[in-house]
């Protein structure tokens, strides 16, 4: 059910695009929307552990992988839109962008960091890496979230309302973890990726 829910934003974009109802600048609308949903899904993955602890619901962990992969999915759509419809696969131009434009540098870095996380999302990979190494690798999601928010913040002309909102949400979720870490380990830690 969550799976279907996660598909809705992409399906909606495709539907509106088909009907020509994405406005005067449909490519910008798609880029903006896929980016927004990437951040929203990243935030959702970060809420799983705090919720699990607050509600004592270890089963929530199962949802985390799905949410994380969907975040990666939307990030890929976002990146593909940039690569194809914005830059038309002009790799030299993209390389220039990544080097000269800070908001693209951090966006690109965030995407690149997502790749190993997506690649190691399967149960087999968890077993291969071992719980501790897997855990450490997947802590990169904190850095990815920060880079993602910076990417949004730095591309907006002046109205930083939405980036600021994401910053507050991500900040709160990360702060919660630091708080718990400082307080001591949680009861009933389940196997990561289970």
């Amino acid at each position, binding site marked *: 059910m969550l799976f279907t829910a996660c598909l809705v934003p992409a399906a909606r974009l495709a539907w509106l695009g088909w009907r020509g109802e994405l406005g*005067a*600048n449909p*490519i*910008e609308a798609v880029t903006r929307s896929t980016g927004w949903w990437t951040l929203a899904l990243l935030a959702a993955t970060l809420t799983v552990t705090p919720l699990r602890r607050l509600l004592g619901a270890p089963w929530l962990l199962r949802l985390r992988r799905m949410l994380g992969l969907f975040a990666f999915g939307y990030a890929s759509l976002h990146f593909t839109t940039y690569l194809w419809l914005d830059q*038309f696969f002009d790799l030299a131009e993209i390389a220039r962008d990544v080097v000269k434009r800070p908001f693209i540098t951090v966006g690109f870095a965030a995407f690149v960091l997502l790749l190993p996380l997506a690649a190691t999302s399967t149960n087999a990979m968890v077993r291969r890496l071992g719980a501790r190494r897997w855990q450490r690798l997947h802590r990169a999601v904190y850095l990815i979230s920060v880079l993602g928010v910076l990417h949004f913040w730095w*591309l907006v*002309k*002046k*109205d930083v309302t939405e980036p600021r909102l994401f910053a507050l949400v991500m900040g709160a979720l990360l702060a919660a973890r630091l708080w718990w870490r400082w307080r001591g380990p949680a009861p009933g830690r389940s196997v990561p990726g289970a």
Partner: protein
Amino acid sequence: MTHRQPAIAPSEITPRAVFEQRRALLRQAGLLGAGMATGGLLLPGTARANLAPRPSALSTTEARTPHKDVTTYNNFYEFGTGKDDPAERAGTLKPRPWTVMVEGECAKPRRWDVDELLKLAALEERVYRMRCVEGWSMVIPWVGYPLSELIRRAEPTAKARYVEFTTLLDPKQMPGQRAAVLEWPYVEGLRMDEAMHPLAILCLGLYGELLPNQNGAPVRMVVPWKYGFKSAKSIVRIRFTEAEPRTAWNKAIPGEYGFYSNVNPNVDHPRWSQRRERRIGEFGKRDTLMFNGYAEQVASLYAGMDLRKFF
């Protein structure tokens, strides 16, 4: 005996661009006159023509951006910062009654009612490229006449080196002004020779009709060789000043938006490139042109100026 010559006001000086193109301009005016004499051409797509503007030789022949896109994809932060906000929310703007106060360093300051402005000079259709600083562009058939028509009637003095434009300040009509995203009221400005240039227009309509609220009703300015934010909307005051005006986006982020803001593919915005743009309605991107393709007409205004320093 010596005879003291009266000082010539900067506004009386024939803009260099005009002077150097005087033969071409006279030729164009002659063609225009012939066109008017033959009743003018009714171009396709101008069925709605309640302002009945005359065609202009200064119009581009490029494909016009559809009316729907021009009126639903707007940056008009006075109504919100989303592109669809102005079309959805500008209903609260009351374009009548409306006056524009023309004042400052001039001999004949006066308040103009917008209906007087509609009759001040012959309305022309100026189909101009519009390039937003964000990297998209449109081709828009504006209706208006040269700003110089209004300026010379005010008789600016020798101290009038700049022209400052001020937008309405009224959060009741413009709810976006409740947010301090920019300093309100919106202020823009031009150097006197820029304001007197034949391409700079006082604009009262769009696609042959009065301006829709979201496009800056009832009267705005359009200066096509600069980024779109320089073309101030819903103007209530035009003031001649000695000092360079502090403009809205320059006050907001001085390092990113300069006073001149001429369209220039060689000078990037600090955070993004200005080399290319997306023409609304097109799939691909196109190269941005120097001065938005108006280099032939305006480059001489900036001869010898370091456009990277004066961005």
